């Protein structure tokens, strides 16, 4: 696989890399604790109804069982606005797999065995778990209720423009539910002793977990500490604490100080820690004879759960992407008796840009022009809806540079005409965009140890992205000391408050915080500080927020082969070119983009949580059934970026790179598959049968 040996760009190595590869970096479940107990969760096997009887006698009689928790004996929890955390508070069942109890025992095996002896009886109520467009379940989410939702957008007269357009596309695209499946399963160790509550938890924001859990159990948040020095991936599934954390805390309350350990299994993760909801998106594009958009409509239907709303905003990807005088963008939800969906890497943008960028490719075919040229013709001068100037927008540069590197100009646009052996070969392109966000409220402490050595503390969680390394670099740079002189401590509530690891904001939000704290430190203590002095500070508000439209951009290219006899799809080559502001560490950034693109490839070809509506569960709920791209599926992936200096986004100048890599990848692959075969598949994933005729 020669493509994979491309040089890794320079940049400091991951500071914890050695600890990780030698197995000494502790993940949540691995923290040494004294005399722990193990928790095995009990889960509902019906999709809706209530528990009428739960007989725990046999389980309690098993040697080594410490406690069996159910809604009968669990402590009362305070409402904190998240129904997922209200575990064991009633006999009600809202979805299959819901937590209905736990066995706590001396070993995980005893707990698992005893869990199998708990006899549960239910009263079943009819449930509805079938995702579909049906007035009985579809509603418009209240956009006023959350800053994360965008209301319906209506500009101009889309219907009239569409009717008059020289070229049109009107197509419906579907994306399936997908589960995050981070390498490190969700795990927590809860210890509740005289000092308070300590959680070793695999999460994306220790302070957020602390605040929620403290409120939930009604203790002072100063008495709760949450520790997460290393997290093995999350992708949004650890963004909010899920029910198992509350369950483990409830258990720890009854063990007289003995730590309680809980590690979810893969199968449990298909029910308890969220997923990307399925979407059904209709895109209508109208264009003039030259391919300039006159009408853009994007209506998305997304699944949510009846017991807890989560609103994916896929259609919003079309709000500011291309110029179009007439525009309609709507997001609707279908509420079902299913587990709650949640953020998954590039929520909204990943499925939304799949639909939009496939439709744009379809339009290019209709107009008969190159899909890159079509995108260039539809570049907006200012952000189309807000009218704000872009802080920087280098989509065209990404497309042009990518075209050059990929050899795009040699491309014969006719579909289904290139064959190598038994494989039909095609190439495709798609654009990517992801908003540049900033989460306020983080603080960092700069502490001068001695002799120019500094300790920098910020409670941010490095979920495997390389934040620890990037923040160390930024601190060293701002303090004007060598990298080795900075020791960064993060991940824990022992350190100053930090925002969630999400929205691709780590480097922007925490990085700016560290930079500003370092500057404040120098202002306060000068360049020759005394031993032991420290400064804690945060980032000032950015006056440019609201004055500029801020997004990262990218261009995704793919070569796809489809087997003429079997329909198997292979992706021997991908290229991503990104414009994401300042790239703080090329080495780790390269890895982030690579990971995002690989996950995009996996989305395009494999990932699909299959729901059986009769039961309301995901049928293929393990890693043998739920396919994630393996090494053999990945060919050459080339990553590069354009130099972009954006003074407006934040003091670091970084736009965030955690998510943009997955955006547009599936569309590029689907477009290439169309180019290879002439078959336009509009439903992910691109499994072999879809190319068999």
């Amino acid at each position, binding site marked *: 696989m020669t493509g994979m040996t491309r040089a890794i760009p320079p940049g400091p190595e991951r500071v914890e890399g050695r600890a990780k590869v030698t197995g000494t970096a502790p993940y949540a479940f691995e923290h040494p604790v004294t005399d722990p107990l193990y928790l095995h969760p009990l889960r509902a096997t019906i999709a809706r109804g209530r528990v009428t009887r739960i007989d725990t006698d046999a389980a309690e009689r098993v040697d080594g069982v410490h406690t069996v928790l159910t809604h009968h004996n669990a402590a009362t929890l305070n409402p904190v606005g998240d129904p997922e955390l209200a575990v064991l508070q009633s006999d009600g069942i809202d979805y299959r797999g819901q937590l209905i109890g736990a066995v706590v025992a001396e070993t995980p095996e005893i707990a698992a*065995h005893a869990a*199998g002896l708990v006899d549960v009886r239910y009263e079943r109520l009819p449930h509805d778990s079938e995702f579909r467009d049906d007035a009985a379940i579809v509603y418009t989410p209240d956009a006023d209720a959350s800053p994360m939702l965008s209301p319906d957008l209506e500009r101009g007269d889309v219907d009239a423009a569409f009717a008059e357009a020289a070229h049109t596309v009107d197509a419906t695209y579907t994306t399936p539910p997908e589960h995050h499946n981070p390498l490190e399963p969700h795990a927590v160790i809860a210890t509740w002793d005289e000092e308070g509550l300590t959680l070793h938890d695999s999460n994306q924001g220790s302070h957020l977990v602390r605040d929620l859990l403290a409120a939930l159990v009604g203790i002072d948040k100063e008495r709760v500490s949450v520790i997460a020095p290393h997290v093995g991936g999350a992708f949004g599934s650890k963004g909010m604490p899920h029910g198992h954390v509350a369950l483990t805390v409830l258990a720890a309350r009854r063990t007289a100080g003995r730590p309680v350990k809980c590690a979810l299994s893969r199968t449990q993760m298909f029910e308890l820690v969220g997923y990307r909801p399925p979407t059904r998106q209709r895109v209508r594009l109208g264009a003039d004879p030259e391919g300039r958009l006159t009408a853009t409509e994007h209506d998305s239907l997304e699944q949510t759960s009846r017991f807890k709303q989560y609103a994916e905003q896929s259609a919003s990807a079309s709000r500011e992407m291309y110029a179009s005088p007439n525009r309609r963008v709507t997001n609707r939800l279908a509420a079902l008796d299913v587990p709650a969906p949640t953020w998954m890497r590039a929520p909204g943008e990943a499925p939304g840009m799949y639909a939009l960028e496939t439709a744009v490719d379809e339009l290019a075919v209709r107009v008969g022009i190159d899909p890159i040229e079509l995108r260039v013709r539809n570049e907006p001068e200012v952000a189309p809806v807000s009218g704000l100037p872009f802080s920087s927008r280098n989509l065209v540069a990404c497309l042009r540079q990518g075209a050059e590197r990929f050899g795009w100009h040699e491309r014969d646009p006719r579909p289904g005409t290139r064959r190598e052996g038994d494989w039909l070969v095609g190439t495709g392109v798609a654009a990517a965009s992801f908003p540049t966000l900033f989460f306020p409220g983080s603080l960092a402490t700069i502490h001068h140890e001695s002799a120019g050595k500094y300790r920098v503390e910020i409670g941010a969680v490095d979920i495997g992205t390389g934040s620890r390394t990037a923040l160390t670099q930024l601190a060293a740079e701002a303090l004007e000391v060598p990298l080795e002189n900075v020791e960064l401590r993060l991940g824990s509530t022992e350190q100053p408050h930090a925002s969630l690891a999400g929205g691709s904001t780590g480097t922007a939000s925490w990085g700016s915080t560290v930079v500003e704290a370092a500057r404040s430190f120098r202002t306060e203590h000068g360049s020759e500080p005394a031993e032991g002095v420290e400064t804690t500070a945060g980032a000032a508000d950015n006056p440019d927020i609201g004055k500029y439209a801020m997004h990262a951009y990218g261009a995704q290219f793919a070569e796809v082969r489809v087997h003429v006899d079997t329909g198997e799809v*292979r992706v021997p080559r991908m290229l991503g070119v990104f414009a994401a502001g300042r790239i703080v560490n090329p080495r780790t950034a390269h890895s982030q983009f690579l990971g995002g693109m690989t996950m995009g490839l996996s989305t395009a070809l*494999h990932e699909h949580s299959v729901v059986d509506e009769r039961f309301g569960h995901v049928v*293929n*709920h393990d890693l043998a059934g739920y396919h994630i*791209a393996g090494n053999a599926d990945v060919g050459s992936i080339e990553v590069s970026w354009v130099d972009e200096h954006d003074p407006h986004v934040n003091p670091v100048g970084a736009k965030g790179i955690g998510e943009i890599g997955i955006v547009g990848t599936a569309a590029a692959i689907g477009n290439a598959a169309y180019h290879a075969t002439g078959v336009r598949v509009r439903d992910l994933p691109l499994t072999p049968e879809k190319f068999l005729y």
Partner: protein
Amino acid sequence: MKPFDYQRATDADSAIATVSRDPEARYIGGGTNLVDHMKLGVTQPGKLVDITRLPYDSVESLPDGRVRIGATVRNSDLAAEPVIRQRYPLLAQALLSGASGQLRNLATTGGNLLQRTRCPYFQDVTTPCNKREPGSGCSALEGWNRHHAVLGASERCVATHPSDMAVALAALDADVLVEGPDGQRTVPVTELHRLPGDEPEQDTVLRHGELVTAVELPPLPFAVRSRYRKVRDRASYAFALVSVAAAVEVSDGAITEARIAFGGLAHKPWRATAAERALHGAPATEETFRAAADAELAEAETLRDNEFKIPMTRNTLAAVLRELTQQEGS
């Protein structure tokens, strides 16, 4: 998961005696299937008898040209065995297309043959399944059945057998050597696995306590030109949607010998005798290949999610035969 006893067998007779006596006892080979089932609660044996130290771990070429493969030979070792690679390339290919390197290092010949279906409802004790709990119903029949059978299924069960190795063995006319409390017997591999019928809980014709000791391959000289082609959702590490094992001999443009078996289509590795008949004596042309596939698939019945298996099988068989006969021609 239920607590269980574990014994390491030192001789076959006592292992057979132990398991035969105790309805709750099971043999364990590599454990890559059985232990999963124990964790999932699909099976709850009270006792495991580990057979991996029994002297069944070698591959021997017998004087009569047959090859005997011991039941505990690991899948990785078997695939690397020179005699297999040279004389039965389809078997080596089938083995290497199965599971992952780590799993193949543990998986045994006997265990691979006797692995159970991957039907997700079978593996999930919270859903009805006739195979796991006779009489409870078949969740796959009207559920997610993309991976399920199109040949030889019943109303009671539409599961497929997941082994790649067994498909190659079926094409090769291998025999399975079995030892039980009443002595030895030989079962052709094509008769080892059952069709589900009214008793889907019975995967095979083996009786409780019978131990697979070896698999024997007939000489079959033309198998040097053979192929195992597996179509799957991922480039590696995925079960077959459809697979084809084939060995052919061509003389003067006509097919003189053909051995064909299909995987992913039935409750057992499916020896395609109708296809073989259609090929026999016919010219090695695309039409012949497709007619052979159609002959075999004439009785196929598809389910909600697996219609694609028909064209996929037909195309894959044609592709494999094309490749094998061209190879021969050149």
